[in-house]
């Protein structure tokens, strides 16, 4: 493409890329491979030696009721939050996109929860959800029954409470992405539809939604990858309890690997989760990709 002394320029490319390549290989690529290796060993931090155990960790995991529970909880978390987050985010984006006074203030306000530290948010909600906390008192006032030990210490409500919090946090973030996509739809589409006498509702279904499809894929994909890894809120709010009702896959990896130091076993769990995430991501690309292909 460009002229000039090719060789001296070539040399510079590798100088420019080297900080990234070095950190990439040492701190990301190598651990990524090492993790796969560990998953086939019985490595424990405190043990003197470790040996190759083949797929023993994997077969043990599939019989470990804690791990299966963790996968189930993670699936509930992912499937239970993403549809709500996506729809709420889209509605918020449509609302903020109306030409109303103060739209920018609303946009900023809705976005603030998602830039605040997750630890901070989790702490605030721990207080709100606690026995005698703000939310229980509010529920008492309107006569909604509340769990006796507070929302987070009751098996039936703990995971759902954390899910509600996560929907609340993430909606504003994805709203911003939808808003950017909405603004990039050419006005002519709507003008043409208006001339043809299409109602607002009609043009939403036949113009807005199809145009939003690529962003929809991106939002769902990013959110899936993120949600599968839910950890911080679990660590701060429940530590996986009560009775494993909020134990998630990454919390399991952390607990077995860095708490009990059963690292081979935890690495196998991490890889199973990784493979599940990849399968989900590819499926989503497939589904959205095919639909997009037929729409165009």
């Amino acid at each position, binding site marked *: 493409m460009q002229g000039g002394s090719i060789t001296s*320029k*070539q040399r*510079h*490319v590798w*100088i*420019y*890329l080297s*900080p*990234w390549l070095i*950190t*990439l290989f*040492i*701190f*990301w690529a*190598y*651990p*990524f491979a*090492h*993790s796969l290796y560990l998953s086939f060993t019985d490595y424990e*931090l405190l043990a003197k030696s470790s040996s190759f155990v083949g797929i023993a960790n994997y077969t043990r995991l599939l019989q470990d009721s804690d791990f299966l529970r963790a996968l189930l909880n993670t699936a509930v978390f992912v499937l239970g939050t993403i549809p709500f987050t996506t729809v709420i985010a889209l509605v918020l984006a449509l*609302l*903020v996109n*109306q030409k*109303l006074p103060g739209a920018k*203030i*609303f946009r*900023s306000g*809705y976005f*603030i*929860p998602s*830039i*605040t*530290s997750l*630890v*901070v948010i*989790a*702490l*605030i909600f721990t*207080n*709100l959800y606690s026995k*005698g906390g*703000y939310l229980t008192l509010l529920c008492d006032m309107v006569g909604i029954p509340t769990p006796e030990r507070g929302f987070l210490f009751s098996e039936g409500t703990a995971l759902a409470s954390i899910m509600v919090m996560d929907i*609340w946090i993430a909606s504003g973030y994805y709203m*911003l*992405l939808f808003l*950017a*996509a909405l603004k*990039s739809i050419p006005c002519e589409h709507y003008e043409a539809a208006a001339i043809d006498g299409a109602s607002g509702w009609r043009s939403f279904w036949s113009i807005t939604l199809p145009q939003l499809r690529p*962003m929809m894929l991106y939002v769902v994909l990013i959110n899936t*990858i993120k949600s599968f*890894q839910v950890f*911080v809120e679990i660590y*701060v709010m429940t530590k996986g309890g009560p009775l494993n009702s909020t134990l998630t896959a990454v919390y399991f990896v952390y607990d077995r*690997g*860095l708490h009990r130091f059963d*690292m081979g076993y935890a690495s196998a769990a*991490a*890889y199973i*989760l*990784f493979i599940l995430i990849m399968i989900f991501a590819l499926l989503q690309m497939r589904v959205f990709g095919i639909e997009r292909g037929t729409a165009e």
Partner: protein
Amino acid sequence: MKLRNAALLLLMTFILVGMLMPLWWMLLGAFSSTFSSGSLIKNITDYSITLDNFASIMKVKNFGRSVLNSAIVGGLVTAGNLVFCLMCGYAFARFRFPGRKLLFVTVVAVIMIPVHIIIIPLFLLVKNIGWYDSYAALIVPFLVNPLGILLLTQYIREIPTDIEEAARIDGAGEFRILFSIVAPMCKPVLAVLAVQVFMTNWNSFLLPFILTTSDSMRTLPVMLALLQGYQQIDWPQIFAASTVSAIPVIAVFLLFQKHIVSGVTAGAIKT
């Protein structure tokens, strides 16, 4: 139409209150002298503002240190990203070299790869090279982030090459071209990157948490998460500490809104 707009505004205000209520609750707790949920709801007139909670949280051993750690780590990681992402973005945008396509795909892939997969081996690695519980562990692995490379590559591609070519003909060296000609033209995107990296780092929990162990090496979010387990720490103090963590980010957001919004959306729109 008027009625519809009024209804929409009412709805949006209602949602806004819901969105900000928990943070308002945090501030209420942080500045209150007699904080308990019950008394606050039943008798809001009892409320009086005080800074005592901040004073007592600053007395907690190593809390101030954790704020300092977060500032130091955030500052250095941001500086590193500005320089290194600029270098990588320039390389990808302006040079043809063997393996370029593959490396660029790697950039995107690394953005997508879930971080949980490396926590155990990263912990082992950092321990083995003697960096466990040190600033190096908190800084070096995070010096170049792939999202920043993507951002810079896309931005530099849009800049015409004439000025660089002219400088090259005048005999300017490659580094001079990058740092004194291209870099100033990238100021807007570098601002986006700086705000983005600093905020992410300031809030980051999982990796700083597993790569450190002593109280004096904790960053602010890690310190916050651990405060719950401390004796004699109550909600007002936790909320005061949370406020110390949240307010800078919200302030930066309100000041640099444009940068943050374009940083969030830039990656999405063009991929």
